[in-house]
């Protein structure tokens, strides 16, 4: 376990240092959310209605931003070789790295989402519902994203491959995340129904993501 916690601490530390991905995601989130009112005009009622969806879309795009470097950096500097040689199960290594990534890039998005929600004229219920669904949903985005990150590294192609691969897989998370928020604000569906499905999606991706990414890395690193 100490090796895993060392890996977690190292990844988290790199992310919050200068040049790391942590603050980038938040700034990108801010930019996306700020651009929307410019595009659709200052219609406060409309903004309030589509606000949760915009926040979710912004968070989805921002959480994928730094993900393609998750394994690529370790691959380029040879760290991945030593990690593959180690006795640790690769699935746990992937999970530890994904968790460090979520804590440094996903969690800040959740924290700033209420402030960005104010820009979109959201009421307090919508703010807290969006915050809660993002808190539960963003780990799913990261765990699905690690599969893409592993593939991008194994195929030695970074950049746009990751969003193209990963975004379609995140559709269910997006649907139930926004649905739960809307249910909390307007109904008529009770909040619990889409929210429990969102929780289930997060748990499922938490299991499938590390296994799929580890299999990809093992196969791809030969």
């Amino acid at each position: 376990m100490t090796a895993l916690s060392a890996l977690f601490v190292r990844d988290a530390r790199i992310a919050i240092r200068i040049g790391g991905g942590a603050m980038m995601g938040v700034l990108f989130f801010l930019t996306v959310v700020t651009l929307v009112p410019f595009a659709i005009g200052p219609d406060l009622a409309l903004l309030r209605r589509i606000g949760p969806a915009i926040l979710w879309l912004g968070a989805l795009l921002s959480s994928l931003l730094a993900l393609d470097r998750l394994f690529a950096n370790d691959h380029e500097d040879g760290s991945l070789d030593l990690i593959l040689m180690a006795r640790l199960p690769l699935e746990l290594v992937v999970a530890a790295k994904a968790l460090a990534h979520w804590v440094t890039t996903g969690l800040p998005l959740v924290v700033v989402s209420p402030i960005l929600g104010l820009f979109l004229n959201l009421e307090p219920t919508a703010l807290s519902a969006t915050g809660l669904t993002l808190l539960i949903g963003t780990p799913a985005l990261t765990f699905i994203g690690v599969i893409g990150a592993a593939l991008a590294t194994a195929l030695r192609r970074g950049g746009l491959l990751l969003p193209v691969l990963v975004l379609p897989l995140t559709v269910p998370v997006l649907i139930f995340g926004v649905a739960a928020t809307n249910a909390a604000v307007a109904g008529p569906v009770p909040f619990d129904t889409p929210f429990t499905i969102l929780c289930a999606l997060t748990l499922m991706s938490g299991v499938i993501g590390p296994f799929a990414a580890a299999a990809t890395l093992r196969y791809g690193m030969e």
Partner: protein
Amino acid sequence: MENSAEAGAKVGKIVAMKLSGHDLACIRGGRRVFCAVRFSVAAGRALVLTGPNGAGKSSLLRMIAGLIRPAEGGIALEDGDPELSVGEQCHYVGHVDPLKPALTVTENLAFWARFLNGAREVDEAALVERGLEAVGLAALARLPAGYLSAGQRRRLSLARILAAPRPIWLLDEPSTALDAASQERLQRVMHTHLSGRGLIIAATHGPLGLAEPEELRLGTPSTVGEDACIARDTDALDTMQ
């Protein structure tokens, strides 16, 4: 340095450790790099891999580390730890240095010390201090690794292998970018490892200063390798496809 001796003491319990490979073949990108390679190294001995560029020195080291599966043949370790794979008992120093530019020299080494020692209880701070002293980087401990020169990066990589005891060292051109004083230090470290019944396999173009190393010369595929390989080439490619 003392740390390496400690490592040696632990290795010393295993008396007749012997690493050997038989009939090894390697195919990279559809090209046969080498085949029918045989080697055997006993504890306390060093094996030096030589040969022109592209002869497969690095591939052979990666194969022993378990990072590439051999296309043919196998690698066996006698009297090693039966619970661990060969790769898990190896230190591998490749030609890139696994250092993070955003972390300081100490943080980089401390991470590997903890990661490589796994569940074993270690005094990380002491290991790091000793490791940095052994490679002469103690004065730069707080500098971000991004500012290190090529030789200093290599020295930090070598400090890593002193931080965790492992019987087998796989070194891929370890003396690259090292100045004369550091090369001497490397020699001393390797000697200590060998006298502690360790085992070194190093790929190199120049002399490493090891006393009587065994030498394995890998030929270019167009000369030695291919003649020997041609007969088996077709089936090997078939199995690959």
